[in-house]
């Protein structure tokens, strides 16, 4: 295992600048999520680490080794692709053992290793199964086992769970987290789903327009987003403009409603109950604020009624203008 250091990385496709000046240091054994919308450069960054694209400028160091001078097939990385990219002509065991057979590792040794890997991902006894006969979740597991088969120094995943239904995705996230913790492998995971990033990452790197907006732990990111983009991307944040001063961000659960008059007033436009949670939209001036609370925790209102709006100053923070 080794730390991954990226400095001043740039990459353009024609006139489109996919990555502009990316610098980030991933610690040994750290789980990093690259989070952002489509076209933000997260997949390009992952492919540059893998060596599937060549960079224009900058450095990628793995430990002290300059990765940019190593061709993809000689970098010791494991990658799980969005389409999974299982070899359709090979069965489960041969998919997992592909890299070992390529390196001419003895058949008995590699068979034992395949068994161990399949046990690890919960596919014991399925080595002879055709990959076409597997369910979506099982195919994910094969892809993960195959990527980890050669004990890679860096483990890369490109939105591997985007095709799964919600329940299966939660389950796979837990498994990936467990496997990553057990192996202690440095991991870079690309996703556009902020919930997934929150659930998995030691550190989330929010990207936008080929730049890093903020790199911080899920907690820090959620409670103190550095930019307006991060605030909006990471959850429903109410960004309140103030004349002559920087705008402030307030999370929905920090807003409190009351029947008091005076102070900030608004009107309830919509409310809906989601299980234990009650979500409301309140019109304040020409802005719509989102508020949420545990149902029954505060006073109840009818749609259209006027309310006093306030928030805990400790949970509101200034954004750069």
């Amino acid at each position, binding site marked *: 295992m080794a730390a991954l250091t990226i400095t001043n990385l740039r990459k353009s496709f024609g006139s489109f600048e996919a990555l502009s000046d990316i610098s980030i240091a991933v610690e040994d054994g750290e789980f990093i999520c690259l989070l952002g919308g489509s076209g933000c450069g997260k997949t390009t960054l992952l492919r540059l680490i*893998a060596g599937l694209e060549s960079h224009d400028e900058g450095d990628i160091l793995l430990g002290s080794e300059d990765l940019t001078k190593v061709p993809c*097939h000689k*970098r010791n990385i494991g990658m799980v692709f969005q389409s999974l*990219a299982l*070899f359709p*002509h090979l069965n489960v065991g041969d998919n997992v053992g592909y890299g070992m057979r390529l390196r001419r590792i003895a058949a008995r040794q590699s068979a034992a290793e395949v068994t161990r890997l399949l046990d690890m991902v919960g596919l014991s006894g399925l080595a002879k199964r055709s990959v076409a006969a597997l369910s979506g979740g099982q195919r994910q597991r094969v892809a993960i086992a195959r990527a980890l088969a050669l004990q890679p120094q860096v483990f890369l995943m490109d939105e591997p769970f985007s095709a799964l239904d919600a329940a299966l995705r939660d389950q796979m996230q837990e498994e990936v987290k467990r496997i990553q913790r057990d192996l202690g492998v440095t991991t870079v995971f690309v996703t556009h789903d902020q919930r997934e990033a929150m659930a998995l990452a030691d550190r989330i790197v929010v990207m936008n327009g080929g730049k890093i907006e903020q790199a911080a732990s899920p907690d820090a990111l959620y409670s103190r987003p550095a930019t307006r983009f991060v605030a909006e991307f990471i959850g429903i944040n109410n960004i309140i403009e103030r004349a002559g001063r920087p705008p402030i961000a307030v999370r929905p659960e920090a807003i409190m409603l009351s029947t008091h008059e005076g102070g900030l007033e608004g009107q309830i436009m919509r409310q809906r109950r989601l299980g234990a949670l009650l979500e409301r939209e309140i019109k304040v001036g020409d802005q719509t604020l989102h508020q949420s609370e545990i149902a029954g925790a505060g006073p109840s209102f009818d749609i259209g009624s006027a309310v006093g709006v306030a928030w805990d100053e400790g949970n509101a923070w200034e954004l750069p203008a």
Partner: protein
Amino acid sequence: MMATPAYGPRLIGGLAFGVMAVFFVVPLIFMIVVSFYQPDPMGFYKVDFVWENYAKFFSSFYYTVSFRSLYSSVLGAVLVVALAFPLVLFVSDLSRKWQLFWIIMLLSLMCLSEVIIGFAWLILMSESAGMPRLLGWLGLWNDPRSLSPSFGAMMIGLVFLGFSIVSLILYPSVSRRDRSIEEAAVTLGTPPALVFFKVLLPTFRVSLLSVTLTMFVYLLGVFVMPTMLGRPKDWTMTVIISDKALGDANLPLGAALAVVMLIVTMLVLVLAAVLTRGRRT
């Protein structure tokens, strides 16, 4: 409410089936019947039931010709696919504009008739105007001679004929393939030069095999190329059959030879189907 059954598609299907029956099955049955008739040098045939026409097939001449037909069709089919598959892979990785350019080129190649392609190659390989003269002029060939008719010239003709067809059959699946499978192979340590053999050939094995079989059947029926570019000893069964049926007016013999070729072709196809199914499991 009951859904009204859709008669339209069934009607069209039935019509197609009827056309097939009338224009394919009926002549086929007629051919089989005629193959048992007695040849008549003065007329076409005498109605009879004899095995004589089939017996002739087992004389060494027709035997040899049929094996040569199989050999040149198999070789031609394998060559066509072996050349077309890499080209299609190459084209599918080009920009959209250039892909379109190549598709149009391949389509226009398909528009050319067999006769025109044959004549073009005849000229290209002739002693007076073609490649031999060019090579002689360049000093690469001391004693330039016409390259056709020859087995090689016929093969070039066959490959040229099948090339655009195979390319266009393979193109849709090759251009839509999941390229991350190749990338996955590289991340697992496959040198890029070996990805073709390690991943592309195995994943396309089934479609390559089926297109090779299609080409084999197609080349068995090719008539113009062997007569224009091949020597009489390279002539395929198709040429011999038309020679017997039309040249010698021996329709029963021609029919018998055609029936034998049909049976051999079907045997080859069944054998190939059994072999591929055996390997898939």
